[in-house]
């Protein structure tokens, strides 16, 4: 079993996403520390690509800020190397970044990832049909390639994807792109239902922003809650409103704690 799957070992967990380098590298290290203090068990770290077609406006802006601050894949790997928070790191980026890195397409990126202590990858514009090469190299390098199951994904595709996925499966809670929504969508329950038979952790993302969401997701049978835009939003507001750095760090930690509390409520509820 992979380190990532291991992280689900003690019950449902929180997986926060933030964009590396937003607004700068030092901040990212502090933010990740805060999220871990808040109870995060896996960190999803965005490596920015200029055309983030799977992301919503909030994360797109974070990516633009990071790029403008000078983030590059090389710096990203340096940044991750410096991190030592005791939780697995998953990189989220787009396929062109993976493909263009280093001497050997795809391979350079994966081996560098491993070298820096990255444990998994999410490449949202790489559906299973195009993933052959990356899958193979990831396997060789012992790194998890995490796929997304969307509300539109049909049975046949689910089978194909579940055959290849490792680490955990990312259950997209709703149609659309990443972003903050008011409630947990009905499709979440249905999607989890469809995946019940598969023996791999299921994490639900897209639109999670408070403890009620988290609780409901866990109640529906998920093993993990992924939240991104809500954290990126805190970082953005901090920057915009000139809130001092330590306040942003505190707010991130509190939000993580709130979601972890929600997860706990979900578990209670499941038991009762």
């Amino acid at each position, binding site marked *: 079993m992979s380190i990532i799957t291991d992280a689900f070992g003690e019950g449902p967990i929180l997986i926060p996403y933030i964009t590396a380098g937003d607004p700068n590298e030092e901040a990212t290290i502090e933010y990740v520390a805060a999220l871990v203090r808040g109870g995060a068990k896996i960190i999803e770290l965005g490596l920015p*690509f*200029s*055309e*983030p*077609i*799977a992301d*919503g*406006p909030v994360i*797109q*802006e974070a990516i*633009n800020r990071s*790029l403008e601050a000078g983030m*590059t*894949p*090389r710096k990203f790997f340096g940044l991750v190397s410096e991190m030592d928070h005791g939780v697995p790191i998953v990189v989220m980026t*787009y*396929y*062109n*970044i993976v*493909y*263009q*890195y280093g001497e050997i397409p795809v391979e350079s990126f994966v081996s560098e990832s491993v070298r820096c202590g990255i444990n998994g990858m999410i490449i*949202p*514009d*790489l*559906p299973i*049909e*195009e993933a052959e090469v990356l899958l193979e190299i990831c396997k060789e390098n012992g790194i998890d390639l995490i*796929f*997304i*199951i*969307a*509300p*539109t*994904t*049909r049975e046949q*595709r689910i089978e194909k*994807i579940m055959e290849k996925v490792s680490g955990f499966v990312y259950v*997209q809670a709703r*149609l*659309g*792109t990443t972003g903050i929504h008011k409630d947990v969508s009905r499709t979440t329950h249905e999607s989890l239902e469809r995946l019940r038979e598969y023996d791999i952790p299921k994490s639900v993302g897209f639109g999670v922003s408070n403890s009620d969401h988290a609780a409901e997701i866990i109640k529906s049978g998920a093993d993990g809650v992924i939240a991104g835009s809500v954290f990126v939003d805190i970082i953005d507001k901090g920057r915009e409103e000139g809130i001092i750095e330590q306040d942003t760090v505190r707010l991130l930690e509190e939000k993580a704690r709130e979601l972890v509390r929600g997860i706990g409520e979900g578990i209670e509820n499941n038991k009762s």
Partner: protein
Amino acid sequence: MKSTKFGKYGGQYVPEVLMPAISELASAYESYVRKNQDGFMDDFFARLKKFGGRPTPLYKAERLSEKYGKEIYLKREDLVHGGAHKLNNALGQCLLAKYMGKERVIAETGAGQHGTATAMAASYLGLDCEIYMGKKDINRQRPNVFRMEINGAKVNPVERGSGTLKEAINETLRDWSKSVDTTHYVIGSVVGPHPFPKMVRDFQSIISQEAREQIQEEVGRLPDSVVACVGGGSNAMGAFYNFLQDDQVNLIAVEAGGKGIETKLEGRIAHHSASLTIGREGVLHGARTKILQDEDGQIVESHSVSAGLDYAGVGPELAYLVDEGRVIPRTIGDKEAIEAFFLLSEMEGIIPALETSHAIGYLENHVEGDLGEVVIVNLSGRGDKDVETVMEESHRLGIKNRTTDRVGRGI
């Protein structure tokens, strides 16, 4: 399933949420377009004729022919309803959406040409239509925005980023991620994930289907060359497709050389849009193709005086055909294009689109041996839309002639 690729190019690099829609579209493409199920293609051709104004003439440019000592024929896509080849595709896709039972179409647009074509076709077929357009482009192309709205489309301004085509594509993909059940995304060129590049090519290939017959009627043989400008590549693929098997016909793809392709990248900015000529293999907007990108794989901002050529990617099939040596990529810069714009207007009474002017400009600035004696240039669109831009840019670039002089005098 049929191949989604052209050699190593093409494919389907899209978020999972869109995969089912793309697969559904691919089957619809196979049955309706490839196999003419329910008489789809007959219906399409009939509508292209009545609504679109096809066939378009193949026109011998007498004065241009004399000037260049060649027989120069223009394929008159400027006469298609809406003023460009864009309608061939927009009508095809909107009709397909209807056959597939979709009620709504969305599209991205840069200069507004594809947006207006889509709005027209949607209105004609009674489909709801929303167009995404960068805020900056909206401000530059107000008349086209009005046209879309007058045709009943909703134009959604995209405020983020540079407010141009790239962002509009991203935003349209986002809409589609939410609305795939009811909505078809009408892509504007031979780009994006499979089946778009093949499908758009098929809808546009009517251009070479007609032209191949017409030129044989005119001169009794095939042409020595076919010249077309390349943005995403749809008019070029349309103009080349039925000549692909004719090895003796040179197929020349003219890209926007902008301010020059030698100028180095500055930050993430290129001074041209020559992805076929000097782009590097990569993945953009759903397909593997040749792309203008920096070392890390970040997509750069391309440049061309012509909004319709100003794109950092290019159709995967063209990338493949260039690698195979079947299509010759060339570039024409901003200045040469504007000069060609004036030339055709003054000599033949046809004001070409600025995009098209790049293809025309290749007549003056061609590489020895490329053209031969009998040349077809695909006149992809008319230039009414570009009149203001040309006036401003002529001034900036120091282009002087009768017209710019006169306007300088303030008439």
